[in-house]
């Protein structure tokens, strides 16, 4: 599971109001190189929750990879280095084993073989 996926998911247990962002517990993770596609990155950038991305990248020790504040999208068009760092954070960090924990209920959604399991239990629907 990459940080892009983490950025899009929330806990959807019935009645939960603040199910985002999920706390990332990574027991096993790797970095894998992914083809760089500037057009895709610029397209997805406005949809990304920046503080959540910065937070999740820091949880892996990438403290200076991304600026605290979301950069202006025009900067992303001109600053190739920034775009590459965004690419690395979003797509090249892979969580193999671990979990996603709901900030409100503490419910842990397991990540197994890179696949987050977001299916709810019978009494959570």
């Amino acid at each position: 599971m990459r940080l892009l996926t983490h950025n899009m998911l929330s806990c959807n247990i019935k009645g939960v109001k603040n199910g985002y962002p999920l706390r990332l517990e990574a027991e096993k993770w790797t970095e894998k190189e992914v083809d760089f596609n500037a057009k895709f990155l610029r397209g997805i950038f406005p949809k990304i929750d920046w503080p959540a991305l910065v937070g999740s990248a820091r949880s892996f020790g990438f403290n200076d990879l991304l600026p605290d504040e979301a950069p202006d999208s025009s900067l992303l068009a001109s600053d190739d280095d920034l775009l590459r760092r965004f690419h690395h954070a979003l797509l090249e960090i892979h969580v193999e084993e671990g979990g996603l924990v709901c900030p409100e209920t503490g419910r842990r959604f397991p990540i197994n073989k890179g696949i987050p399991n977001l299916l709810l239990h019978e009494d959570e629907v």
Partner: protein
Amino acid sequence: MWFLCVFFHRLLDYRRPEVESLAELFGAFEPMEDGSPVRPLSLEWNLPQNHHIDSPFHFVNLPSEDVARNIARRSMLVKGIYELWGEGITDDDLEKAIRGFSDERKLPYLKPESSFRITVDNFGKVTSFQEQNERIRGLSYIPFKGRVDLRNPDHKFWLMEIDDYGENNGLPPVVERRIFFGREVGAADRKLLPTYQLKSRKYIGPTAMDAEIAFLMANQGLARPGKLIYDPFVGTGSILVAAAHFGAMTMGADIDIRVVRDGRGPDCNVWSNFEQYGLPKPLSLMRSDNNLPPWRSGLKEVFDAIICDPPYGVRAGGRKSGGRKLLKGAVDPYTVPEEKRFNHIPSTAAYSLAECVNDLLELSARMLVMGGRLVFFFPVLREDVVTVAQFPEHPCFTLIASCEQILSLRYSRYLLTMVKTGHYTEEISELAGKKHLDFRENHLKWMEEGNLHSAVFSSSDAQNTKSSFDRDSKPKYRGKYV
């Protein structure tokens, strides 16, 4: 510019919509003032005189030869697109037409320093080598100056003919002979079909999508580099493989964790299907429920296309969260005991097609970008006379293509292509819900759990013998692939 567009005699309903989609992909339509081509746009088409819509020969108006070449090369169902130099009923007609075709357009392709080849092709008949040579010699009035190269010529010419040979692959009778002569602008590359055929794919399931259809779906979804495509019923990833082949980024979800996580082992799973073809792996695979999607609130307009084959309960039924399998000692209200929560496997409930399609439309309305496409299969019992009104609708979407593939005497599936033409709001969502209820009540009782399966598989004795299904209402030549 008008071109002769010759199709393969397959998947007849899918042919023009594929060309229309590729025309959009390769920029044949002028964008609107705000820059986004969200209007459903269409090309101008014509048929040769006396030809039926299911004929392989069509004329299409395209903005340029480059667009025509790009369309032909990427298409699955276009055999070739040609610059027509002449057509006629007899050889004399043809000669007259070719002589009358402007020299300005002809001469650049007849130069001495170039190489060329002429192919003779009769639709519905095998032409002997000798006859082919005679036909080619009959074209001696065209001043070819170049040298012949059968393997790798600069210019390819085609002499194509259709006549009533007694058998026309089941097409309606050909009224009169017609001959076409043209220069090939582009031709389909069907070599990728043997590469991607399911029988050599490592990991497939019972409902893995046939490679040809998966490529057609990817074309309908305008898959290309820089675009993000999502399949909420990803299974073994057969649709996303096709999208990734065309350079799109992919994401998939499935409710069945065994399929999406485990496959048949470390070298035989969804990921390995992408590895096998050297394609970039999906950006995300996850287990989630289409009925209760886990997207964070506020997330919308992320995907450029959603392409899927929803479970309609004939070969595989849908499941959703919220089952009520009895747990030992469970009392109302239903709760999972604390000590059993870790690694608990939740039971699931049946998911009717009606609910599934409604959820799919809602999800797509929210998660697709404006102008994004929803491409999915929708089953129809052939007893019903199908009209556009019977397909599911949503206020955010405009249906631009519905292509039938007949699966058996009893049912077909339609590939529906919808374009998001309206913004998604709370009010729209409410309106869509009402529309869906109306659709569900008035049209499709068989969309409820199990009904489609029984309609397709019940024995014929059990069925009403005076079925309203009229076997003659559809042309007889229409079969599984035609």
